[in-house]
């Protein structure tokens, strides 16, 4: 059914040309505070203010408040209401204090871990760490995020740097497939810079005259690039690569599935395809061709798990790993994720 794939890709291309701006991302609530889960005084004040001033979500409470009937008389309902609201504010403050302590505890832990695990640009160290593990994931995926322009490691160059770090670690660990996801598709759009950046990073890790070969695949545009610009492999023998990297973005998620539905519906309506042809297997194989295989382990380098619209079909049994309150792409998270994967047991349904 290569026809379906072609049509979906074409439709996506057209759409990409018409709309350059992507959707605004809504992050998961627990990542809402600017300083990644560490509640500041302003946050507490804001929460308290919003609780005190906005009506509650619960319909029952609102109805009760309107009917103005309390246990003790006419206005006691209101007093009860205010009493509970104040108690909620107190609970919020207590929670914020607890969270604050937890945040600092986690940060201290991460600092120590970062000291303990440092690859310092040597692949041997990474391979040694990995050799202790029982099993490795076949396919690895990671979500990278663009930080604010002014921050350390922020902006597009920060994303490129994080991505190439991950590529270097993955090659050194001996994993053959890596999918890098970023919501806005910065990596895709700057693929030439990314190739240069990966090449540069690899020359730091390996012998500059014999840098591992890599292929970068962009499923959305159905393109494959080999190595850094200017060093493309021309014959088939040198197309043997140490790693295959696919770059994903928000468009490979829901939008691809919707485009696939549209295409299939259209084909069915025009009798070019039978309804009975639509099977789970077909959809799975189409989505595998359009987006890629399901990763075994998904690493996230933010403070709280936030999938950010990662392709939903592809996270069926994927193991997630993230370090609470961490906000940097570091090797310690990477290796600890691999360790967790090595220890986990997957029994599908049994």
């Amino acid at each position, binding site marked *: 059914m290569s026809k379906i794939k072609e049509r979906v890709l074409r439709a996506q291309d057209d759409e990409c040309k018409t709309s350059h701006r992507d959707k605004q991302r809504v992050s998961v609530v627990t990542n809402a505070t600017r300083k990644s889960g560490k509640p500041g005084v302003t946050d507490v004040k804001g929460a308290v203010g919003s609780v005190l001033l906005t009506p509650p979500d619960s319909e029952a409470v609102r109805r009760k408040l309107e009917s103005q009937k309390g246990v003790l008389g006419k206005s006691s309902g209101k007093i009860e209401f205010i009493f509970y609201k104040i108690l909620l504010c107190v609970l919020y403050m207590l929670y914020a204090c607890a969270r604050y302590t937890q945040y600092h505890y986690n940060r201290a832990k991460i600092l120590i871990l970062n000291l303990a695990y440092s690859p310092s640009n040597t692949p041997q160290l990474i391979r040694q760490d990995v050799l202790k593990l029982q099993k490795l994931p076949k396919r690895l995926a990671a979500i990278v995020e663009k930080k604010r322009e002014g921050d350390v490691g922020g902006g597009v160059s920060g994303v490129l740097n994080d991505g190439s770090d991950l590529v270097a670690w993955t090659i050194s660990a001996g994993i053959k497939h890596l999918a890098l996801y970023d919501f806005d598709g910065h990596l895709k759009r700057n693929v030439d810079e990314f190739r240069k950046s990966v090449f540069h990073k690899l020359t730091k890790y390996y012998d500059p005259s014999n840098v591992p070969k890599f292929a970068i695949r962009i499923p959305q545009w159905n393109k494959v690039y080999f190595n850094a610009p200017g060093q493309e492999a021309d014959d088939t023998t040198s197309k043997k690569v140490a790693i295959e990297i696919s770059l994903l973005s928000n468009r490979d998620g829901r939008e691809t599935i919707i485009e696939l539905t549209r295409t299939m519906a259209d084909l069915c309506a025009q009798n070019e395809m039978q309804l009975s042809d*639509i099977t789970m297997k077909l959809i799975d194989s189409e989505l595998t061709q359009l987006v890629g295989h399901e990763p075994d382990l998904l690493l996230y380098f933010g403070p709280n798990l936030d999938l950010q619209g990662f392709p939903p079909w592809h996270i069926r049994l994927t193991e997630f790993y993230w370090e609470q309150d961490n906000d940097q792409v570091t090797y310690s998270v990477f290796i600890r994720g691999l360790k967790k994967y090595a220890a986990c047991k997957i029994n599908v349904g049994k």
Partner: protein
Amino acid sequence: MVEHNRSSNTVDVIEKELKQTKERFKPKAPPFPYVLSPMSILEYAHAQKLRLWSFILSLACVSWALLQIQMTLTNILKMGPLPEHVSFIMDGNRRYAKSLSLPVKSGHEAGAITLLNLLTVCRALGVKTVSAYAFSIENFNRPQEEVDTLTSLLAEKLDEVARRAQDCNSELFGLRLCVVGERSRISKELNDRISSVERMTSEGDSMMLYICFPYTSRNDIYHAIYDCAETAKYHGFPAAQIDESVLTNHMMLRENSNNCDLLVRTSGHTRLSDYMLWQVHQNGHVEFSSTLWPDYGFLEFFRVLLKWSFFTSVQRRRNSRRLLRLHTACHLKETLFPRAPKHVSIEDLPSPPQAISVADRS
């Protein structure tokens, strides 16, 4: 009247059964330890401690006080923001049974009790939609005996929930129940029973409960795609008009398919296991807990809800730029005490000290 009596009788019977099941999970008196081995003495002490605790908790006054505390906490939480859709992955029933060396069936029963308790909490809070992952399509790979146990348990519990939903004294009154999933995989008899229960509770409007029984999220998405293609073929729905909302409304959870605010997964695995993929992958908060499902109690759930509620308030505050109090305060300040504009011209500054170069000194 007779009808009413009968239903209240059944509720009594069910309550009694519930009590019996709870009774079964009570720690039993341990055998007297072998005096010479310190390990066995420690074990004995631990078992006795557990017994003491369960005895204290079973005292009428203690359980009454606990219930009061629980109600107060629920009332407090009600005042803040509430998640619209809460979902549970009930994992760890078998391990729970194994840890107490009980048959697998009683583990599942204990899990059902936990679900009922949490449903009560959600209903009291005013959460509109709750869903629970009862059985995955992959679970058909389990031993036939266990599959049968699970199906019969589901039938039993469905009846119980339906009775409670109709009983106006119960905490679950007004609940609407819906069993979603690949219904063709279960027996016709059970299907009929489920349909009748769904019809019984179809009037309920206080809370929507989805039991996902043989369900997987991929299967759900597949069915939605298939249905969309079908409407395009036979009902002339233009294929170009299919968008996110159309596809989402074709999913099994209907209008609640788009988003799940809070997903709780117990027993320590950090994966979704083919559940709520579409609902959670954008900005749903997933809470992984290492407690086994039957042990997942009110307090832990309360902590999760408080966390969610706190961060949601913060986010709402951030999103709404019109907080009354601050605005009025700023406005008042500006009108009552107008501040002088802070424009400074360079001529107004005092002249800097004399500039002396080191190099030119000679």
